[in-house]
Every structure is written in C-alpha cells, then in structure tokens.
C-alpha cells in the first residue's frame, strides 16, 4: 500500500474526522473565550474534568446525553473560576489558566480514585455508537467517512455552524467580538463588559469539557489517567492557526486529525526502519510549521490578555 492509497481510503478519512472531533470542541471553546479577550489555559484540565465527569455520570446511570450535560456543567464551573479570577479581579490569565488546569486535572483524578479505590481494570460504559442511517451510511466513501460517525462528531460539526452563526450573525456575537477588541466600546453602549466576558468563558469552557467527554464516551469507553495527553494545548495553537474563525478552526482540527491518522498508517508501512517516536511527533511538528506560516498574519483580538476595570482611564 503506498501513500496515495492511504489518502484515498475511506477508513483514513473516517479516522481523521474521529480524531478531530475532540479538537473541534476544544478549539471552538478556546476561540469563544479568546474572542471575548480572555485566554483560557485551563483547557487541558477542563478536558480531563469533562472526560471524567461525563464518564462517571454515565457509569452512575445518567445516560449518555445526561453525561454530556454533566460534563458541560463541570466544564462551565471550572471556566467560572477562571473567569472570576481574570475578569473582575483582573489577575494574570496565564497564571490563572495554568492553575485551573492543575486544579481540574487533580480534582478529576482524585474523584476517580476516591470513587473507585482499588480497580485494576476500570469499569466500562456503553459509549456512543456509530450512527446507522439508512441509505446514507451505505454510500461509498461518504458513508463510512461521514455517516458512520457517532452522534458526538455530528454535534461537533453542528457546533461549528452554531458558533459561527452566533459570532457573526447575532447581537450577542457582535458584543463578544467587540468586548475582545475594545471593552470601552461595549461599556459605552451600556453593555456589561464583565457579564459578556464571564459568559463567554463559561460557555467556551463547557464546550471544551465536551471535547474531553468525547474521549471517554465515544472514542473509548472508560477513563484513565493522562488520557487528554496535550489535546488542550493543541487547541490553543489551533485557535491561532484559525485566526479566530470557526470555519478555519474546523479546517485546522481536521488537518491535525489527518496528520495523526496518516502517521498511524504510515507506521505500519515503514515502521520497521523508522523509530515510532518520529511518527508520534510528526503531527505536532507539522502543526508547528503550519502555525508558523499562518500565525504571522493572524490578527489577535485587540484586548486579548488585557484586564479592564470600570471607571478607569
């Protein structure tokens, strides 16, 4: 099998979309936060919290959609902590974000360990199953790639459209874009800078948590330590790659998914001669290159990282 064959195989593209799904949630979440002017480095920990909370809820009998709701709420809660520290209190967004990542990760592990003290093989849940849509799922190529994914992948794609619509077509999105560029503009129109920013960070964090939940509720069927594995950080980079646009964010996530799916397949081809670490590294190296090329032209939200206080010059 040569490279070309990999690229035109439906299983490759199906895998790319599957790998991209958590990143789509994460990058959209980070994008909403940053559009409002707040960098949320809590993302890595919020992924872990979402993965753990969603899975635990399902395990306790909440049902899959109930599990997603719980994950989103937990993500929103950690987002709220970050928002309160950075928006009205104006603390460093970097420090607070990293703090939230450590806190959320540890709390998730702690809860898991306390709930399940001595298990050697973690309990499993029944995760989201691939959809089986009559006719569509049986189409050649598009069937396996698009119509045999789980509901969460579809949810992610719907979210891309929804976030785009909200940001570009609604008064709320306009206010979020404005508050991330010049809070004074929003304040002068009688809108609440704090309210908008806190709301955006909470909503964005809830989305991030869904990305985490995908890992335990769709990609795998149980929770284990270290399963987030840097996906949150990749999302932070992808937002810049996407120049803060939902459509490009989808593209970036897919690109990364494709790199990753490709390296797995390439490994089975030439793995005998090349150390496997090279392959594991490849998607990250390629994203760095993509980022370097794109990010130079990126237009940052004007007020990103800058705290704003009412009544100050």
């Amino acid at each position, binding site marked *: 099998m040569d490279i070309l064959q990999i690229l035109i195989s439906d299983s490759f593209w199906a895998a790319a979309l599957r790998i991209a799904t958590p990143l789509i949630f994460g990058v959209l979440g980070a994008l909403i936060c940053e559009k409002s002017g707040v960098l949320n480095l809590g993302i890595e920990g919020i992924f872990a919290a979402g993965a753990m909370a969603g899975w635990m809820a399902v395990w306790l009998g909440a049902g899959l959609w109930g599990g997603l709701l719980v994950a989103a709420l937990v993500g929103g809660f950690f987002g709220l902590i970050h928002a309160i520290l950075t928006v009205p209190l104006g603390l460093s967004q970097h420090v607070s974000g990293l703090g939230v990542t450590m806190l959320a990760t540890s709390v998730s592990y702690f809860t898991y360990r306390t709930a399940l003290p001595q298990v050697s093989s973690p309990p499993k849940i029944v995760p989201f199953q691939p959809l089986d849509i009559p006719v569509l799922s049986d189409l050649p190529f598009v069937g396996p790639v698009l119509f045999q994914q789980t509901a969460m992948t579809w949810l992610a794609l719907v979210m891309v459209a929804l976030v785009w619509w909200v940001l570009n*077509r*609604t*008064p*709320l999105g*306009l*206010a979020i*874009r*404005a508050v991330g*560029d*010049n809070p*004074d*503009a*929003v*304040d*002068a*129109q*009688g*809108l609440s800078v704090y309210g908008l920013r806190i709301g955006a960070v909470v909503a964005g964090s809830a989305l991030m948590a869904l990305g985490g939940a995908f890992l335990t509720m769709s990609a795998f069927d149980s929770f284990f330590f270290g399963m987030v594995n840097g996906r949150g950080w990749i999302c932070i980079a992808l937002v810049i790659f996407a120049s803060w646009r939902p459509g490009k964010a989808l593209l970036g996530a897919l690109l990364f998914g494709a790199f990753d799916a490709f390296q797995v397949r390439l490994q089975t081809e030439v793995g005998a001669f090349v150390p496997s670490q090279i392959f594991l590294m490849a998607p990250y190296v390629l994203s760095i290159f993509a980022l370097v090329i794109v990010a130079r032209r990126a*237009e940052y*939200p*004007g007020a990103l990282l800058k705290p704003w206080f*009412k*009544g100050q*010059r």
Partner: protein
Amino acid sequence: MTNTRVLSLNNLSKRFGSVVANDAVSIELHRGEVLALLGENGAGKTTLMNMLFGHYLPDGGSIDVADESGDMRPLTLGHPQAALEAGIGMVHQHFTLAENLTVLDSILLGSESLLAWRHKRKAARAKVGRIMQRTGLTVGLDEQIGKLTVGERQRVEILKALYHDARILVLDEPTAVLTPQEADTLFENIGAMTKDGLSVIFISHKLREVLAFSHRISVLRHGKLVGEIATSDADERVIARMMVGADTPTTPREAMAPGAPVLALKTTTVKGDSARTSLHAVDLTIHAHEIVGIAGVSGNGQSALARLVSGLATPDSGELLISGKPIHRFTPPVMQKAGVGRIPEDRHHDGIIGAMSVAENLVIERLRDSDVQKYGFLQQNSIRSHAQDLCKDYDVRGPGIDADARLLSGGNIQKLILARVFECMPDLILANQPTRGLDMGAAAEVARRLLEARARGAGVLLISEDLDEVLALSDRIIVIHDGQLHEAHTNDREAIGLMMAGEQA
C-alpha cells in the same frame, strides 16, 4: 426655545486621589437648548459628562432627567445602561470603537436585544442611511473601523449616538477632528434637530463654533462652575477671561528668510491599500526657518505623508532627503536620527505609552543617551530630575511625574510630547494636528513653540484640518487632495477651501 427643563445636575463632585476633578457642579438643560461647556484642559468637563452617562460614580450629588412626558426623575447613577434608557446619548472624547468591527456593526452594537437570534441589518442600514442624509455625515458602512481615519471614526461615533434616538445628546469635543465645513454641517443639522426637541450639551475648544451654534455657555475652571452666560452676551474675550481668568497672549510672527532644505520629496509615490493612504508622485521641499502648512480634508493622503516622514511607510518610488541626505531605510529610529521630530496625530495611541510614567515617557525616544542609561541600567535619578525640569518648562500639569501618562488630560499629554520632541532639537518637525483638542492657552503654547523652533532654524511640516491654524502659522500653504499636493499661492480662505474640495484654483 421653550422653558421646560430636561436635565439637572445637582452638586456633582468627583475626586481622583488628590485631584478634585469636579467640585459641587450644578447645571441645568432645557428642551431644545444647545449648551456649550467650556474650560481649560483638565478643568473637569469630561469627568462631569462621564458622571452623567454613568461611567463614573459621583462622590456626591444627584442627577434628574425628564422622562418622555416631561416629569423629572432621578437617574440611577453609575450605570450607562440607565443613562441610555433615560434618553441620553454620548459621543466620547476618546473613541469607543472596536477596530475589528465594520462601521455598521459598530453602530448596531448595543442597540438590539442580546437574545435576538439574528441582526436586523437591513433595517439598520436604511435607518443609518437616513441619518447620514439628514446630517451630511457619511462613511462607508462596510468599511472596517481599523482602516478609517480619525475624522471618519469621529463621524461613526456621532452616527452611533444619533442612531440610538437620544433626547439629550452629549458631545465631548465632537469637532476636534472634523474639518470646519464638516463641523458647520454637523451643527446646522443639530440645530435642525433641536427644533424637534433634542437638547444638546457640547464641549469644544473652538470658540468660533461655540459662539455660532450654542444658546448658553457654562464655564468650568479647576473643577468648579465659574460662570454661565447667554451666548448672545458673549464674545471671545469674555469667554477667555472666564476660562483662564486672564487674557491669552498671542505670539507675533516675524518674517524670516528660508534657509537650506531640510526635507525634500522628489516624485515620491506611496501606494497604500486605499486612496486615502496613498501619495501620487508628490514633490515637496521644506527649508530651515520655514513652516509649511498642509491643508486638506481628512482622508486625502495626510496619513500617508505623515507615515512617510515618520518612517512608518516606505516609498514605492521616488526619493526622500532629510537635510540633503537621501534616506534608504525607512524606520522610525532612522528618521529620528536623521533629525525628524514627530508630533503624532493620535497622541493617546501613537504618542505615549499610557501604562508608563510621565518621566519614562519623556525619555522614551533617547534610551541610548548616557543620562538615561548606563551599562544597560536606567538612571532613575537623572530621569526623574530631567522630567521635573521638562514638566516645569513645558507646564505639564497632572498627578505628577511618577503617575501613569494615561491619567493626564489631553492638553497635558500634548505638552509632554512637545517637551520630548523639542528637547532633541530636531531639524524637521512633523506636526500632525498638533492643537487638536487643546484649549486656547495650550494651543497658543504649541504655536509659540513651533515658531520658536522655526526661529532656531528648524523646518516644520504642519498637517492640520484647522484652516485657521494653517493660515495663522504657515509661511507657505500646500493643499492636499486625492494624494496630490498643490501649492496655494493665496491666503484666501475661500480659494483654499475650493482647492481642498478638489477644484483647481
């Protein structure tokens, strides 16, 4: 004018640290009235209006606003939303625009319910179109704010306030960045709107428009209301007296023979990304002992010229010589080294670093000098004593040399920049809208310093939309239109005005 009250400010006070910005100020406004609020830079005008609009919470006092049926009701203080709902619209002195939005979006911001699932852009477009037609203030609705000139941004601000159907309109120096013609049109239209019941408070340093368009004048000095006078009883001298407590001296202009060229542009072309940021094969020479005034309507290439001379733009063809030496690399430090001192157009944005102290801002352009820095360490003592001296020489007033520069009033920021620029004895001074927003005293001070530099042997490139200023200061006047320069061989306001509009004299 009917005699119904629509607004009363009762004993409003506000202090910032040790600065008393407003001290028990009371003002009344009537339906259909145009009130001009005057005072020196730092007198507390903006602070007073910011309390009215809810940006600042007063330390004491109250505000009553008439509702639609004319009953006076107390206004909830400290909430812009409450002010907007009470029918108060405000155009701020400093832009409150997000640069990433389009003009239409900026106007729409805050006018619709945040829960609406989509904008009503079409209806909004029509409404803004009607307002533009009525007021003569036109801007491309789909342009991005970041790409607009300062004058255009000001138009957007005014449109924004009018769009919200204000019954009381507060304009904090609305015409500071408009051309005289634009200002006149604006006020004529505001005059028409007051016939429909709009009441207006405007702040201005331009006595000409105050005398022409207001009904009543209130004057603040050091935070206190020091006088109120009907405009029909006032003239420039009376007002100046009330504001300053004394007459302002004007510097006489001596005739001088021009010396060697300090700036020469030879068929220089700058291709910007739009017409207003381009220059087309222009020739320009400025000599020592000479002030050359560039008159023109904003957006005709002034910013390209200013960017070129300050080293922010590189010419696409042609040459630029400073004191006879051609410039090859266009960066601000190169220009500065060659002897260019710049007074930028947007002093808050390009002139100072707001989060750094006054003392630091004063040395920011000469970090290599040994009295500022030794072995890579800042010389705090000499920087501070240097700042103390300069602030005294240039009369920079404010919370002190260690305070953040953003806390200074506009006039004092400009004095800070003047001090920094003139101290380096530049051969060529780029003065871009140097008196925009300055009170009479401060403007006279800028004029005096420019004339002083001219006497010393500097050449001055004066870019200004204030034709009166250009006429008063310049040895030669050049009109800029559509990226081209035309020498005006006349001092006639009318003729130059026609040239500015693009008609050949």
